[in-house]
């Protein structure tokens, strides 16, 4: 019996062949903390009596959730990470001047590499699986353990193989693929398991869509999502100064999968996840016939704040105006994306149409700041969670979608097809 890509990555790190179900303690290539989760890790690190990081170059702190500080408490919280970063002369410390949402920023900087084991005290760490790496979210104490020892313990996960075949319809993206998977298997359908994405659709899927796809593996309860390296990945990595040599692993033809799901995407429409679970997916045509008026449109986050998202949105709204009773907020995920979008004229198109373009931050997605919903308001958002109260008031409602549908909805003032704009 062969091995899955995930079993191979763990085997390489463990120095012996390991299979799903085994507990292994392995070194970690990149450990990621942010302004919210790292302070608890720093406290545990200090309480342990540790003086030095086990692997300083394999530790990143990205201040992205509530930075630039939204209030005094957030400022004080960020200060804890800043002081720790200076004290340890941390190379991979990302503050305001080169800020970005961690799961967009680290791949951009070449700090996460194919074949890596990556943990982050952020549940969307699974995003990095798009690079053929094993990446998973953990809590702050587990992060501290990795800061102290350079590794951590894992139960090697079983894998669900998800095969996407067929050609995508216009305006259907990686976001729709993962929303469709979650619609089919539910928010705990992949609990403790890895989702491995393969098939002819994946063979031509661009990196931005692959990041969106892996990003929401956690919304099905999965430990990780993964796409093996191919020429599209290699092209993405080509110009980057990689932190480590890339290691490519591929599942064996006779690898063991706990489940296989096949999805023919050729007839798949954009998927809209209705309140209050990401698994509550409906087709765009259904949403259009439900006539859903929106107060706010949000485009951004670690799911859909990349250059192609900004480009898509800008092209749809160019020369038009955001509907009178609707607000549109666009948050490019990193400073580089902001710069590229600006150079390419996308920011101007968005602002001309009436959108507000913000600094990179996780803020709006988790109801932190920069776009909080009022009582009973309705939003369509390119983010990853539509839980009760996620983006603001407990009575607000969130519909999740891709960037094209969100942009079209801003112009229409209700959930709309990009074709109708």
């Amino acid at each position, binding site marked *: 019996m062969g091995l899955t890509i995930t079993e191979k990555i763990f085997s390489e790190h463990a120095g012996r062949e390991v299979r799903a179900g085994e507990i292994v303690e392995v070194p970690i290539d990149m450990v990621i903390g942010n302004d919210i989760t790292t302070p608890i890790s720093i406290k545990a690190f200090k309480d342990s*009596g540790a003086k030095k990081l086990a692997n300083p170059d394999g530790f990143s702190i990205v201040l992205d959730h509530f930075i630039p500080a939204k209030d005094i*408490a957030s400022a004080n919280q960020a200060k804890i990470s800043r002081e720790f970063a200076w004290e340890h002369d941390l190379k991979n410390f990302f503050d305001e001047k080169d800020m970005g949402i961690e799961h967009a920023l680290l791949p951009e900087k070449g700090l996460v590499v194919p074949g890596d084991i990556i943990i982050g005290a952020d549940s969307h760490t699974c995003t990095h699986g798009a690079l053929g790496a094993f990446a998973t979210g953990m809590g702050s104490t587990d992060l501290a353990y990795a800061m102290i020892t350079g590794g951590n313990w894992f139960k090697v996960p079983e894998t669900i193989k998800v095969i996407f075949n067929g050609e995508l319809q216009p305006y259907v993206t990686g976001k729709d693929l993962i929303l469709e998977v979650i619609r089919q298997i539910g928010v705990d359908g992949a609990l403790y398991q890895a989702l491995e994405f393969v098939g002819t659709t994946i063979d031509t899927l661009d990196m931005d869509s692959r990041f969106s796809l892996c990003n929401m593996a956690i919304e099905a309860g999965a430990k990780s999502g993964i796409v093996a390296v191919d020429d599209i990945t290699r092209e993405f990595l080509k110009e980057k100064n990689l932190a480590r040599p890339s290691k490519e692993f591929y599942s064996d033809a006779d690898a063991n999968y706990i489940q296989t799901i096949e999805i023919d995407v050729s007839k798949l429409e954009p998927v809209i996840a209705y309140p209050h679970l990401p698994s509550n997916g409906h087709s765009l045509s259904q949403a259009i016939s439900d006539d859903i008026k929106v107060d706010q449109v949000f485009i951004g986050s670690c799911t859909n704040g990349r250059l192609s998202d900004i480009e898509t949105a800008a092209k749809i709204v160019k020369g038009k105006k955001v509907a009178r009773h609707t607000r549109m907020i666009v948050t490019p995920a990193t400073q580089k994306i902001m710069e590229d979008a600006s150079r390419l004229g996308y920011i101007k198109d968005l602002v001309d149409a009436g959108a507000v373009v913000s600094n990179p931050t996780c803020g709006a997605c988790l109801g932190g700041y920069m776009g909080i919903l009022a009582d009973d308001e309705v939003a369509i958002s390119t983010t990853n969670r539509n839980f009760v*109260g996620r983006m603001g008031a407990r009575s607000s409602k969130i519909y999740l979608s891709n960037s094209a549908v969100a942009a079209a909805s801003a112009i229409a003032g209700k959930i709309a097809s990009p074709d109708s704009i």
Partner: protein
Amino acid sequence: MAKLEGKVWRFGENIDTDLIIAARYLNTSDPYKLAEHVMEDARPEFASSLSKGDIIVAGANFGSGSSREHAPIALKYAGVSAVVASSFARIFYRNSFNMGLPIFEIDSVDEIDEGSKLSIDMDSGVIKNLDNGKEYKFKPIPEFMQKLVNAGGLINYAKEKLEKEA
């Protein structure tokens, strides 16, 4: 290990970390401040009416969503003595364990009503409903995690490791 006893608060399925502690309160990691807002968006009266030692009983996928360790911290410092659910989200499971919040998996959570009194015997692995005498065996903690418990938690385990290497 001791016995836990407390009154039950019932919650449904997919109680996510935003319901346990909303992100608007994550500008601090002060456990007592977090505890003031625990479960606020699920049941606004929860934090103020909770008695120390109370037990949460919930459906599947408790703790889904974010990796915030603030969630088990808020529950623990609010006085919740244990969470019993039919299943837990992966990161929450590990975090609770690291934070010392006892959590237990049983299948028949639907038989346990709001307000009933439970007793949890951590040694024998039995949860007893003191109102009707019904007993439930909870699923054992994975062996490796038991090793961490014996070491006094993950950070103590790290300390031991550092000392061995020194």
